[in-house]
């Protein structure tokens, strides 16, 4: 692991589940995900159990380190802790979240983590995109919500690709490398059975990779999936981006790779970037370079299986 500072020299700990549970319920567990460290405190046992199921393979710091963020989920008073438990979220940013029932606390946790990155991360250029990497190929798939990019990125990661992120692609502005941020993959509605089936094809005990399904959330049914062990272990391995694919999910379509101009790819990538305007000129130059050096296309696909084949085909064409 790259040594970040004198404060980061202390060993990352391999906690067992019980130790992690104790940390989470007391001073907090210092979770490292890619470039960010967040101190997580969870007052509810059910949320800790789900958290541990998803994050147990991640690095946790033993000695205190400087955190990028902290997140604290708690019951505001006796009634909200024990009678009708409700998960209040404190992300330390003067923002108030609408509390969800404690049974959906994992959703609150993930949304809180999303919010912190989405609102405060300007030191990396951020794409609303699925990002994966393999053998020196850095692949960005910018797309709006509902285009299936989360499912596609997650699907590729369970077929040998390293998952950078299913929705927060990060680019270091100096080295122009993609920075992995492998959070739990957030699956919604129809994509849940698709991914469960997908993981079952290649992994035993596939349900170990998923949380329970949270029904009736503000975004419908949500289920979180753990990234592959390989992706978690590679969270500090950065890759130069060299392929941009715009994915379009259309159940009625014939699978197809369509050429697009670099100009179009440039604009679509800019549009996917949440902090492009804040970063300004540096972001413009970074995306210009990125697109200059990348092969680009659009894919239309009716199923995940088709999408993975199209991606592999387009990537393979460049190597062969």
């Amino acid at each position, binding site marked *: 692991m790259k040594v970040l500072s004198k404060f980061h020299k202390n060993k990352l700990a391999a906690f067992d589940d019980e130790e992690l549970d104790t940390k989470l319920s007391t001073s907090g567990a210092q979770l490292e995900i890619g470039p960010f460290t967040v101190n997580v405190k969870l007052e509810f046992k059910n949320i800790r159990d789900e958290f541990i199921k998803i994050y147990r393979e991640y690095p946790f710091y033993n000695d205190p380190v400087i955190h990028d963020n902290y997140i604290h989920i708690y019951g505001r008073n006796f009634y909200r802790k024990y009678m009708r438990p409700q998960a209040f979220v404190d992300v*330390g940013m003067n923002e108030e979240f609408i509390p969800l029932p404690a049974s959906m606390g994992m959703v609150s946790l993930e949304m809180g983590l999303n919010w912190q990155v989405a609102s405060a991360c300007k*030191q990396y250029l951020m794409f609303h995109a699925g990002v994966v990497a393999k053998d020196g190929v850095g692949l960005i798939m910018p797309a709006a919500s509902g285009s299936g990019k989360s499912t596609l990125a997650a699907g590729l990661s369970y077929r040998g690709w390293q998952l950078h992120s299913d929705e927060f692609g990060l680019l270091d502005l100096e080295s122009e490398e993609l920075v992995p941020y492998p959070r739990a993959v957030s699956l919604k509605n129809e994509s849940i059975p698709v991914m469960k089936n997908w993981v079952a094809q290649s992994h035993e005990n596939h349900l170990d990779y998923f949380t329970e399904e949270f029904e009736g959330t503000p975004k419908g049914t949500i289920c979180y999936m753990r990234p592959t062990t390989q992706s978690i272990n590679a969270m500090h391995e950065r890759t130069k981006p060299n392929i941009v694919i715009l994915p379009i999910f259309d159940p009625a379509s014939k699978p197809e790779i369509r050429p697009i101009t670099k100009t179009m790819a440039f604009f679509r990538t800019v549009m996917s970037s949440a902090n492009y305007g804040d970063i300004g000129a540096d972001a413009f130059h970074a995306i210009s370079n990125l697109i200059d050096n990348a092969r680009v296309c659009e894919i239309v696909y009716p199923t995940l299986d088709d999408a993975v084949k199209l991606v592999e085909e387009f990537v393979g064409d460049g190597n062969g």
Partner: protein
Amino acid sequence: MANPITERNILIRVLKNPNLMENLGVGEWNELLREAKISNLAGRLSADAEHIGIKEKLPLKVQNIFKSYDYSSRSSQRMIRWEMNRVKRALVGEDYKVILLKGAAYIAKELKCTRGRLSVDLDILVEKNKIDFAEDKFLRHGWEHHVENDYDQKFYREYSHELPPLVHPDRQISIDVHHSILPVTSRVYPDMTKLVDAAVPSVGGFYTFSNVDIVLHSVVHLWQDGEVRSSLRNLLEQHDMFEEFGKDQKFWDALVPRAVELGFTRALYYALRYCKMIMGTNIPARVMKNIDQYAPNGLIRILMDWMVPGVISPTLGSTGLSRWLSMNGLYIRSHWLRMPPFMLAKHLSTKMIMRIKGEA
């Protein structure tokens, strides 16, 4: 006269002496960053570290976090400047003064307090007889009203000192167009022509208040009209301006007499007292002595000394009942000063009913 509560607070200590950042431990950094984010001052810490040349010596993790806040403050100020450019196109060039207020004025004058500052709205002022004209210009140039509901619209127009906020749909900056710096219902109502007459030309055809009036505006905004709780950033901006403008003795000579002229002596008393107490501001003894004659009575002074340091930062001070009393005491005070009692009761009850009905 230092206050024991604020003296212990790490954010205030570092703001007063940024060199402390060179030798902070992990726990102190976490506490400092947490407080700075809540008070919207993380960008300021970064700018201070840069200014005194210690940024490269800070832990890499901190440098990385600061980089994010550097981009945020730069971009927010860039957006304000661009919005000023758009406002100029819509409004400036007529035969009346368009005066930049608050953050926009600080940015136009490149004051020290804009260092690392996050600015989200644009405040301008025109004379009252030009307010309808200005509103019409904005609406013709594509700005829209942000507040739709009738009660709020009516409240703004009848009792407030500004138009309902205007937002251009292409940009997300909210513009407040003022005709006064205090609500028309306020206990103290300044003669605005005095402030407008003293305003001086600034960038792009805009005007700003004179230096003394810029400070007094910030002062009445915080100590007369606004909320004291969680306003460390505003206290800091006053501290910065006292230090920056105060290099010129003429500023100090003019300050108290101008406050007397405009009726802002009580607010200025609090600003000088708490800047000195909390931030250790350099204020000439003659000025402190001069403003002392406008102090409130002993009981109020004791109450304010007890309440203000405990709530100026959201993470400060006591907990439980005493904090609750301080917070709510100052909240009620700010409203009490804004409008007469009957009107206040009517306003708060209307807002409460709207909230219950889910309309606001």
